[in-house]
């Protein structure tokens, strides 16, 4: 994505913060500098693709790197409680309805599977009846 805050700007912004508080300030910093870009990236993706690993790995990776860099520059230990809570909020917002097995292949639900199975069976029986009827008619009964 072309727009977004380059890491260098984040680093410089972080260096301007005077008090190295790894609590509230850190939390403010990651929300200010990292969350915006992530939000934009995810909005670009169609909501149906949020549970798709291939599509979300890049923005998610950038977000994680961003929090790591800020922690590094603020001399904070990483990961820490603020980052954990930050990610919990992100997961609850974006990934709350992703299934546990991810995109593992599964059968369609029964209301789709049922007709797919029953209709060919019925067509088979109809076709058989048709052939029996036609072969009967083609000579008549002796």
């Amino acid at each position, binding site marked *: 994505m072309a727009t977004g805050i380059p890491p260098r700007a984040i680093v410089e912004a972080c260096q301007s913060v005077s008090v190295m508080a790894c609590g509230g300030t850190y939390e403010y910093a990651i929300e200010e500098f990292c969350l915006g870009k992530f939000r934009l990236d995810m909005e670009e993706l169609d909501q149906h693709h949020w549970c798709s*690993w291939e599509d979300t*790995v890049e923005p*998610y*990776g950038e977000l*994680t790197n961003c929090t790591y860099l800020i922690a590094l520059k603020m001399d904070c230990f990483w*990961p820490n409680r603020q*980052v*954990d809570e930050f*990610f*919990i909020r992100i*997961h*609850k917002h974006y*990934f*709350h309805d*992703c*299934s*546990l*097995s*991810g*995109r593992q*292949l*599964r*059968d*369609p639900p029964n209301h*789709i*599977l049922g007709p*797919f*199975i*029953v*209709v*060919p*069976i019925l*067509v*088979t*029986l109809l*076709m*058989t009846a*048709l*052939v*029996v009827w*036609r*072969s*009967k008619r*083609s*000579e*008549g*009964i*002796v």
Partner: protein
Amino acid sequence: MQRRCFHSESSFVCCVWLYVAGGAGLYCNRTWDGWLCWDDTPAGTVTWQNCPNYFPDFDSTEKATKICSESGQWFRHPDTNRTWSNYTLCNFHTTGKLKMAYILYYMAIVGHALSIASLLISLAIFFYFRNLSCQRITLHKNLFVSYVLNSALTLIYLIAVVNNPDVVGRNPVGCKVLHFFHMYMLGCNYFWMLCEGIYLHTLIVVAVFAEEQHLHWYYLLGWGFPLVPASIHAVARKKYFDDNCWMSVETHLLYVVHGPIMAALLVNLFFLLNIVRVLVTKLRDTHRAESNMYMKAVRATLILVPLLGIQFVIFPWRPENRLAGEVYDYIMHILMHYQGLLVATIFCFFNGEVQAALKRQWIQYKAQWGQRRRDHCSMRSTSYTATSITEVPAFMYHHDCNSEHLNGRHTSEDSELVALKTGETYA
């Protein structure tokens, strides 16, 4: 923890899920152990799930287990004192299973090769002995051709796709097309068996001893109709379960093809039992000779239908026990892959007419060869040749295609002379 969340899709999903909700009571917390995600487990229980397929020697049908101790903590390995999940079963039996998989694979290849050979021989016999030709033999020929094509396609599929993990990995469109044709030919096999049953039923029960039927509808049912389930399966598979080369058998979408096949087998069985009923009750008194012959004709088809169908009945129930499972696999493979050989044997090699025609041909050949040798060896051969040719045994009666002759149609070119042996196995 976020760093480990990048390992793969499974870890990503697990990490997401780990954060999302919570529970209560004495239980071991849900966790990610580096390979699999484990749910909240009540204290004092052992939880399991299927092994992952990350490694080539991991069998994803085996189980990985994790113990949750009484105190609500995950089991720690005594040596390292770290939480530990038991993945030992995942690759424990792998070499043995691999060996058995190869044995079954080669068995399948041999089965199909034998089937193709025996079916081609039978087709050659049917085409060579033109006097055997009639409508029922025409249906046999179509059935044999469909079995030959099915075996050929299966062989190609086994050799080119199943034995070739990189083809499966690449997932070309060709292997899905091959799978589609494989399903189509499978349908053709069983629908031609159904055509045989319908033909006999129409011949015996509905229009007894009538003139020749029009075979167009049989061709439509045998060759044309199986396109329908195969196409529906392809569409459904593409839309809902599009795995590599459509190789997986873990999906219920296969019933889109197997369901109509089972329906055809059941309908066939019903028709054949009806024929037997009619033959036994109605024709017993009036047309004794013909009913005997038709009973023999029906017997072959009646034997084949359960044999061909039984794999669909017992297929879902693979025993859990290892040894029983292996026996099951061997039996299923024999039933599935040697069907062509079985069909050729019962419909052609055990057919009394075919045996008689072959014997006659052999006698003629021997006589001619003997005559040629005598011509070579001596000049005084004329008296011998006269007697050797007239030694051909007497009258033959066309069992199989009897109906066409009963109405007085004379087949001038083919009143063959073969001995009529009563009680001969007639298929």
